[in-house]
């Protein structure tokens, strides 16, 4: 008896020790099919130390003290990756922004401190509105000395010209950026002339610069500006552009700080078109009823657009992916389901939301502050980046996490975390895909963190890519087996059996092979009632077809047999027929 107790006790103790050892720190989490939080595997981890200014090749720490944006450009001809890193400088200390051009090994190749422009290329209105390092280019200056030009013919002064004529008398004038916040390069190929432009949001100069990449002059060490977009006169906004995207037709989309009406769309010639991307307020029945009693002035003052503050954009395949903050009404959150948008060229949001939960960063969060210094509220999505097969990653600055979704809106994995250690994010300003890795520009620590996919994330990425290309199962092309999504999903299951989305992929393979019973089994494991219904329908049809003939024959035989039996019984009893049909119940 005692021996049995000791055995049981030691077994339980062994189990407990197993349990305590297994729950280590650093476990990732994800949201299951009902939106509950469950433990899971992390998708992206940091394997190498982040790049500080010296690793990048910048010679002084003061030149990298306020990083604002990072952009990865795939060259249109050579397919090599070029990175653009923007350091905002400082407006208060009158330090201009610097643009660093890096290669794909993250080493600085060029350092651009200023741009030049030819005043003859611009009209008078624009020239009066241009600013350099916070000062208007044309304004009165104190000294009446002669302005010198340096050896390259560039004017030594950049702002404070007495008059337009004085400005126009020079061939090339410098322009210094003031807290520039975004850089974007776009090669426009769909109409002549082909253009290769660099777009820079010069936030505190209230302008967007359009720089021609082909005008690089190694003597000057910089490029020439071909177009400057200043405050649109139709809109009564303080134009502080913070992010920019250019589509294939050359239209420029700008997110301006403190503008809640949406993303500003400018045509290629610089004139303001419209606002894009906001949702309209939906009227409830009560609102429609009440509008009958409102006066004209009340109706005019009503806000029909939900004020959305956009934060980041990415451009892929003619679609603009945009992130915004949750829409709040004072302190309460009214709409947090539309924080990620995929805007098509006509301005409509066409993001696929077919996953278990809507793509919005953290699905469950505490609405009020529970402890001091605790992050609360919905995710504040800062940036978004898209890769070749439609999967996109967003970064949340509330809890400093990275959320990766696939093309259909399924949450693939959650990575990152908050903290001051080297592998944690503290103030993300830009994220970009570099191949399979993800670069995060951290403004607090002034580093570029490189996130690499874990083993399971590599397999998940391959499976998602196969699904995007439409290969649910293995195919044989030219005699070779090309693996499909199901092959990779099975590997994902081996690594993490709780990855519910993978079961649906495996189920689709069985459905393609017309093995409906197995398909139903896997769809049930993946908690997908839609596909389960389809598989069950086919399965039931198959069973009915199989058993229809025998079952019908037996049923008809039974009916015929019963009626014959009744007839024989009636005949046999014969006279007692009347008594059989006796008086019924009341």
């Amino acid at each position, binding site marked *: 008896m005692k021996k049995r107790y000791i055995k049981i006790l030691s077994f339980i103790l062994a189990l407990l020790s197993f349990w305590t050892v297994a729950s280590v720190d650093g476990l990732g989490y994800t949201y299951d*099919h*009902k939106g509950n939080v469950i433990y899971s595997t992390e998708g992206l981890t940091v394997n190498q130390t982040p790049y500080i200014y010296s690793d990048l090749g910048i010679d002084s720490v003061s030149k990298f003290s306020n990083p604002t944006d990072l952009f990865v450009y795939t060259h249109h001809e050579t397919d090599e990756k070029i990175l653009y890193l923007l350091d905002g400088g400082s407006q208060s200390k009158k330090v201009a922004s610097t643009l660093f051009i890096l290669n794909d090994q993250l080493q600085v190749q060029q350092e651009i401190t200023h741009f030049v422009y030819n005043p003859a290329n611009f009209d008078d209105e624009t020239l009066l509105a241009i600013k350099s390092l916070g000062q208007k280019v044309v304004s009165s200056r104190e000294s009446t000395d002669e302005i010198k030009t340096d050896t390259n013919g560039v004017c030594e002064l950049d702002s404070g010209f007495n008059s337009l004529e004085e400005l126009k008398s020079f061939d090339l004038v410098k322009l210094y950026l003031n807290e520039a916040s975004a850089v974007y390069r776009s090669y426009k190929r769909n109409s002549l002339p082909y253009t290769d432009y660099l777009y820079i949001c010069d936030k505190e100069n209230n302008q967007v610069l359009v720089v021609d990449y082909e005008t690089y002059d190694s003597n000057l060490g910089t490029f020439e500006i071909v177009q400057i977009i200043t405050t649109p006169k139709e809109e009564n906004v303080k134009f502080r552009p913070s992010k920019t995207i250019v589509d294939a037709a050359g239209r420029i989309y700008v997110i301006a700080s403190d503008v809640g009406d949406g993303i500003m769309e400018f045509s290629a010639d610089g004139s303001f078109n419209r606002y894009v991307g906001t949702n309209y307020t939906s009227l409830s029945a009560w609102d429609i009823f009440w509008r009958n009693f409102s006066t004209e002035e009340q109706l005019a003052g009503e806000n029909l657009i939900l004020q959305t503050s956009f934060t980041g954009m990415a451009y892929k395949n003619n679609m603009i992916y945009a992130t915004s903050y949750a829409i709040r009404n004072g302190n309460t959150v009214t709409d947090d389901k539309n924080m990620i948008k995929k805007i098509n060229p006509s301005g409509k949001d066409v993001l696929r939301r077919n996953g278990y939960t809507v793509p919005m960063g953290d699905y469950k969060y505490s609405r009020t502050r529970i402890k001091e210094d605790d992050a609360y509220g919905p995710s504040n999505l800062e940036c978004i980046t898209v890769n070749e097969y439609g999967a996109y990653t967003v970064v949340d600055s509330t809890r400093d996490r990275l959320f990766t979704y696939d093309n259909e809106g399924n949450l693939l994995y959650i990575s990152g975390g908050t903290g001051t250690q080297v592998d944690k994010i503290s103030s993300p300003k830009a994220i970009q895909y570099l191949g399979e890795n993800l670069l995060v520009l951290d403004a607090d620590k002034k580093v570029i963190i490189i996130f690499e996919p874990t083993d399971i994330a590599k397999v998940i990425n391959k499976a998602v890519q196969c699904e995007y290309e439409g290969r649910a199962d293995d195919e044989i092309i030219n005699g070779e087996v090309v693996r499909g999504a199901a092959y990779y999903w099975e590997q994902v299951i081996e690594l993490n059996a709780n990855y519910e989305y993978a079961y649906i992929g495996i189920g689709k393979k069985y459905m393609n092979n017309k093995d409906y019973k197995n398909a*139903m089994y896997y769809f*049930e494991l993946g*908690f997908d*009632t*839609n596909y*389960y*219904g*389809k598989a*069950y*329908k086919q399965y*039931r049809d198959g069973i009915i077809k199989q058993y229809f003939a025998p079952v019908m024959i037996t049923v008809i035989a039974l009916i015929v047999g019963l009626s014959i039996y009744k007839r024989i019984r009636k005949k046999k009893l014969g006279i007692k027929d009347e008594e059989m049909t006796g008086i019924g119940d009341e």
Partner: protein
Amino acid sequence: MKKVWNKIAQFFKFVHEEMFRFPKYIIIHPLKGWEEFKRYGKGKMSVALAFVIIAIIVNIMKFQYSGFIVNDTSIKDMNSFGEIAYVVGAIVIITVANWSVTTLFDGKGNMKNIFMMICYCLFPYILCNIIGMILSNILTTDEIAIYNLVISLGVVLMVYMFFVGIISIHEYGLGQCLLTILFTIIAALIIIFVGILLFDLFQKVYGFGYQIYQEITLRDMF
């Protein structure tokens, strides 16, 4: 041996008569049925309790045996104590609320009658849920409206039986019956509210006592 066989046959006859034919009779001939229920004592307490237990079992079985198309919860989310509490709690609260309201409105029913009436109302609910359970395993997504129809039919018949039962047992007219149902709901809400208050206060008293205990034991006073 024959005695045992007789007893079993008698039992099945009882079940058939009481638990199927009589409730069916009540549904088809409501006023007459409830009158027989009350006046001729055809309502049996054992049957009422059996209905309650079967309703609890059917609720629990719904979690596991319903087809995947209508039920995608996992079995680990089922709380059997919760299911028992929902059914028994609902019946007890409605009974007590109804009884307390009818004493104000000069109803002729007593607590036992009201309790048995409510339990007999569970009959269509149980039957339709069992049929629905079987159907949900056979139907596809396009035909799932039939399942919804069956379940709704069960609930509608249950409410209808309850309605006519109130009229018949307390001998009310139509207007008084509607008023009684409204006040029953209000009374049930008051009971629930008082219950929640009680639980909260009990928790606070317990917490207070536990804190005192902790203070005494953890401080080095003695």
